[in-house]
């Protein structure tokens, strides 16, 4: 049963009707063509442009010239190290928070919600019906100094008299967590929902308390969802600039804000391009390490 018997069947097909096979062979590639073209035009080409820009020298007035200046990278990395680490820190914090909030939610929807399941799933994705910007602006109002959240926190003594939430790291992390929450909840739900209930029953039958059954069966079986959810949250959060823009101040700025201002405000294209590339490589590296570690332990 470990040996799939597909290959011989395909061979037999070729023996019986070679012309059909020869003609049909092109069809998959033909079908791939639009996708490949799309990728070439909108991904590979811009990537090459950015790569080349990141190695140029010059100024906006005199024009930029490709001089293979690798120092663009080292200079940018040194100058913006703080924003880099803040980006990864905020992204990591909001990913952990999103996981902590989403796991019980997804668990509840998958195991306990019964006929309310579809309604609850709809509510999870409901925020997508309005734009990302509007939602972040709404958080600005929620966390504003005169808002009820700050008022309540101050009454409860969680915030000092003059303390604020807006324009702090807390606000930025809260915004990131909120904005990417559905990307965590949905994959978690999908993997929890797939778990065969009789496995949990088998665990309790084999002397596992409800907690042990969760820890030894439900949690490991939901890890593919955890991995997918954390990636889908962490990656966009690490490159985000909107949440800092609306909910933070320059002293919370993340690498996304630097790239944005280098490209669109200062018009320092080589630095912006070098930063973009560095961010991309850093994320790739982190994700690669993470998936390798998670992969060896979990994926069923």
């Amino acid at each position, binding site marked *: *049963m470990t040996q799939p018997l597909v290959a011989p069947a395909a061979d037999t097909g070729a023996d019986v009707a070679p012309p059909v096979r020869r003609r049909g062979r092109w069809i998959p590639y033909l079908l791939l063509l639009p996708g490949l073209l799309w990728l070439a035009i909108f991904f590979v080409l811009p990537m090459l442009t950015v790569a080349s820009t990141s190695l140029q020298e010059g100024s906006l007035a005199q024009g930029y010239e490709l001089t293979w200046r690798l120092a663009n990278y080292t200079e940018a990395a040194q100058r913006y190290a703080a924003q880099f680490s803040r980006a990864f820190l905020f992204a990591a914090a909001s990913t952990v928070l999103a996981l902590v909030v989403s796991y019980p939610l997804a668990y509840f929807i998958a195991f306990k919600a019964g006929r309310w399941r579809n309604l609850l799933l709809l509510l999870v994705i409901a925020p997508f019906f309005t734009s990302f910007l509007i939602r972040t602006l709404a958080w600005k109002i929620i966390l504003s100094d005169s808002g009820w959240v700050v008022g309540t926190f101050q009454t409860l003594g969680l915030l000092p008299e003059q303390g604020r939430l807006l324009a702090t790291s807390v606000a930025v992390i809260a915004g990131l967590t909120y904005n990417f929450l559905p990307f965590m909840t949905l994959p978690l739900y999908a993997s929890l929902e797939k778990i065969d209930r009789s496995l949990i*029953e088998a*665990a*309790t039958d*084999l*002397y*596992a308390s409800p907690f042990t059954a969760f820890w030894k*069966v439900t949690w490991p*079986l939901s890890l593919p969802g955890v991995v997918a959810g954390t990636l889908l949250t962490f990656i966009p959060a690490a490159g985000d600039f909107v949440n800092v823009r609306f909910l933070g101040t320059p002293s919370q700025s993340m690498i996304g804000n630097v790239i944005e201002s280098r490209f669109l405000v200062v018009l320092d294209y080589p630095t912006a391009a070098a930063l973009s590339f560095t961010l991309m490589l850093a994320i790739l590296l982190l994700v690669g390490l993470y998936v390798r570690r998670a992969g060896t332990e979990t994926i*069923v």
Partner: protein
Amino acid sequence: MTTPQPTEDAELRLIGLTKRFGPVTAVDDLHLRVPSGAFIALLGPSGCGKTTTLRMVAGLEAPTAGQILLGDSDLTGLKPYRRPVNTVFQSYALFPHLDIYENVAFGLRRSGIKDVRAQVGQMLELVQLTGFERRRPSQVSGGQAQRVALARALINHPKMLLLDEPLGALDLKLRREMQLTLKRIQEEVRITFLHVTHDQEEAMTMADTIAVMSQGRIEQLGHPEQLYERPRTQFVANFLGQSNMLRATVDGRDGDLVTLRIADTTLVVPAEMLSHGMLTASGEVHVGVRPEKLDLAPVDDPVPQGRNALRGVVVDTSFMGTSTQYLVRTGWDQELTVFAQNRHTDVVAPGTRVRLTWRPEHAFVLDADTPTSAAAPQPAVAP
């Protein structure tokens, strides 16, 4: 596991066990005693409440009413992980993220046992899976998965093993093989097996006691031969093998025999087969005769001493290899089934007039008031 210790008293007693799911009564005031070390089959058609009964014993379902006792302890309110019973699930429910070794070790580890190597090794040997330790459940066949499930349960030395249609997913040949394996293992470990099945042949091959279940109740409990030879209800008579049911009027008593009459035919049955109620009512009874107990002979042959006889015409003949199945129509237009071994006699052609004979003690007698059909599989519905 090598030393089969006849477990300290682990008699299972189900007392008035009842489970309702909304309007559906899945298990209805069920009483059952299973002696320690028995191999008992809970046999019944699909939907009669077998799985629900088993799940209540395992603690996976809470009874609506009734008690579950095992030995001296009352299990009724206990959580499943506190019960000294283990289950082999219908779909095996092996943990897909653990290899075979860890699947089998799961229960021991939960009980806090650190060194499980020797025990897991012995268990895998018992179910003949040595060498499969590092495979994942997805990398073994159905029959092997079934044996892993068995090992995973047995390794905990439960006082009782619950098996829910464990062979249901296997093909016929493998099922036969596993029936024998299960029986061998049960004899080796001497743990009480409560085996749920809807397959009467499986129940008869493996179990030393069968509880026939219908509509949430136990219809009859007994040894396989006892249930087959002396069914007490129409349901049992028809669920375990085939029966010819003859409706007869009680005519009178003649020593140890009771005379019965059907149309112009007179039959006798041993008086002990009729309960007191049946005799005095002087009404009607059902006489059951198994198809293989009927001898088919030419109509003019003399009736052997002491046998019941009736005449009929062969209306259908089907050759089935080792035996031939005949349909014989009686004088009162009832069709009876006869199985005749194919030894030296020629197959009797349809249209032939024949005489059917059988020994009085080979029949069984049922109250005529019980419904004739093999009861419908629907569960009893509460009012």
